[in-house]
């Protein structure tokens, strides 16, 4: 990108102006890696001048892999008629939580497939049982909540308030994929629309829950559709300020139906860092952006800290979904801290709401 054009855009953004959709597309098409990196890094430094890089100690618990949604990009789910599907027992749940707490973990990322039969009471019971341990439950992505409402014939607002009453602490941003109905119709027609996802998050924010937002990119979407996704998030955040963080990650194609239909090239490290930087620049009302070491590995995740990310995500004592798509990076808390220090930042353990531990 010509330096003068870039200076116009960076000047606008750095003096507090908002990146327009045209600017976004222009940066996407013409800016080089350094222009995006410098701009994203400057925004990150301005938002987080203390040079902290945060992380959370938690565990993913996937209470079931039985799912009626059958998304084509998913390598994790089992169809309801598949006898290999599982549903965790309370004993299994209790053990996983105990192991997490023994390792200094503060929260459980609780997500599962869209189970055909379970009623709201089941999830309320699960939450009450889990909350006996005192652990923070970051649980049930919008498609799950939408599904619970459908199965139990309740409104979204009622489902959320009942889950809160049963102990739900916050909602993870999963299931957003790409918030564009063309993409959803093609990849996950049974999962609910972009409006549905936004509606669940808006209601959750209204009822006082903090949530995160994700984006899974690099499959069948166009750049305009990625922009549409970011725009919808930014608009909702303007209304509610309920999102704590944005977490983009590239689609992992192995073992998924989407790739059997048409070959999809895996997003490269270069493509990931560019998208991360663009997201940091566009989402001016999001305080935190997470690196995805689970999909990118420790090296690229560390480099993410120079391209807009200020959070290293979670230690993920257990992770099943990305692993099912053929990726198996592991990082301990010690390794995360070493990577952060090596990049010139201070590692700080945090909770879901980004308050610091210790």
């Amino acid at each position: 990108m010509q330096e003068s054009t870039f200076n116009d855009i960076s000047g606008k953004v750095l003096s507090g102006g908002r990146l327009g959709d045209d600017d976004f597309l222009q940066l996407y098409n013409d800016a080089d890696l350094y222009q995006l990196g410098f701009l994203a890094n400057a925004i990150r430094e301005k938002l987080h001048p203390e040079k902290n890089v945060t992380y959370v100690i938690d565990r993913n618990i996937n209470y079931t892999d039985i799912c009626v949604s059958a998304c084509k990009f998913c390598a994790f789910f089992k169809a309801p008629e598949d006898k290999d599907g599982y549903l965790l027992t309370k004993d299994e749940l209790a053990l996983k939580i105990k192991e997490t707490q023994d390792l200094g973990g503060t929260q459980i990322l609780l997500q599962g497939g869209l189970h055909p039969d379970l009623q709201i009471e089941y999830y309320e019971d699960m939450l009450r049982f889990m909350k006996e341990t005192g652990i923070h439950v970051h649980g049930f992505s919008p498609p799950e909540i939408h599904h619970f409402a459908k199965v139990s014939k309740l409104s979204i607002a009622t489902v959320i308030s009942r889950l809160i009453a049963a102990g739900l602490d916050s909602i993870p941003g999963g299931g957003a994929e790409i918030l564009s109905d063309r993409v959803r119709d093609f990849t996950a027609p049974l999962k609910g629309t972009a409006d549905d996802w936004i509606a669940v998050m808006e209601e959750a924010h209204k009822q006082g829950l903090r949530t995160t937002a994700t984006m899974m990119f690099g499959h069948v979407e166009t750049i305009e559709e990625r922009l549409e996704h970011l725009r919808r998030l930014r608009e909702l955040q303007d209304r509610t300020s309920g999102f704590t963080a944005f977490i983009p990650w590239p689609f992992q194609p192995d073992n998924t139906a989407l790739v059997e239909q048409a070959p999809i090239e895996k997003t490269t490290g270069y493509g990931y860092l560019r998208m991360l930087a663009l997201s940091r620049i566009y989402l001016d009302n999001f305080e935190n952006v997470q690196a995805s070491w689970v999909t990118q590995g420790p090296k690229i995740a560390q480099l993410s800290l120079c391209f807009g990310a200020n959070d290293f995500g979670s230690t993920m004592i257990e992770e099943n979904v990305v692993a099912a798509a053929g990726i198996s990076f592991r990082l301990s808390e010690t390794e995360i801290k070493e990577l952060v220090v090596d990049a010139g930042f201070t590692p700080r353990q945090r909770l879901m709401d980004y308050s610091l531990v210790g």
Partner: protein
Amino acid sequence: MLDIGWDNFPAFFMTMKKFIESTGFGDILEKVEAGERLSCDDGVRLYNSNDILALGYMANMVRNRMNGDDTYFIYNQHINYSNICTNLCKFCAFGKDKEHEQAYEMDLETVKQKVRDRLDEPITEIHMVGGIHPDLPFSYYTDLLKGIKDVRPDVHIQAFTCVEIAHLAGLADKPVGETLELLKDAGLGSIPGGGAEVFAPRIRELTCEKKLPGKDWIEVAKVAHRHGLHTNATMLYGHIETMAERVEHLDALRLAQDETKGFLAFIPLAFHPKNTEMSSISSTTGIDDLKNIAVARLMLDNFPHIKAYWVMIGPKVAQIALSFGADDMDGTVKEEVITHMAGAETEQAIGSTTLVKLIKEAGRTAIERDTLYKTIQVHE
């Protein structure tokens, strides 16, 4: 909008140049822009910095000036004829004592068969290195070269590091120059860059006391250059070396290159601790990998090429490295043994289509080259 005090944001950010100045590297940027040689002090400052964007930006300027968007790869085959080694360097998971259960050596027929097995592939280079074997005769090595040429006459053989060459000269009981002539006659085309490690005597004493000393490594390379053989150069980073020792290493290489102009590429090699005697050291990070690419590009102003060896740093970082000074991704490689015995989690081979895709997505021009950087095919 978050209240983040944009009004106080310094106006320096308006140009890239001002951004670099804000990181304290304005003086180095001026030298880079003027094409002036950086001092060793400059090199240490660069290594000690975490401003990877500033380092990369300057290295990228040099890369673009020297190589434009051209980004090279080669269709090659790796053969490690034996891992039996008397040096047993502490950073190495490949070399084994002759009595070790994992020790192996390939006879001539095995090597020829490996070449024969892949005759249907468009391989232009055989990359062959091994340990310092205690008792194979000089004729074994010339027979290997001749044998490979028998099976695949057109292939370029890049073989035997400077450390092996010095050992072979001992076996032949001849000076290095004469030994090289004999090897050339047998089919040797060029010499790879391995065995350089870190030249500093302190590092060699602590990690590889039996290995050819650094100054002798350079001497062998210079003799090779004078005998018309091109060579590469490497540096093994990320173990116990200091930043000053890294810079000293690069400076020694660039002074040698001033004399002979025989080096083609510099290849920073990331230390892989697993299964070595130094396994308590952490693996290199993405930032250190990119820093080594960028500083090498900035310091080695007389090296035509800087290689991001994807086997060592992974294809993802190697791709990013193309914007941090590197203009070469090495090759398709197959059966990579040395790094994988040290726990490398990268694949053993990536196809040329993958390499081309990585290069193109990084906004560069993918060029399949031969060993001496002659273009074989430009992938538009």
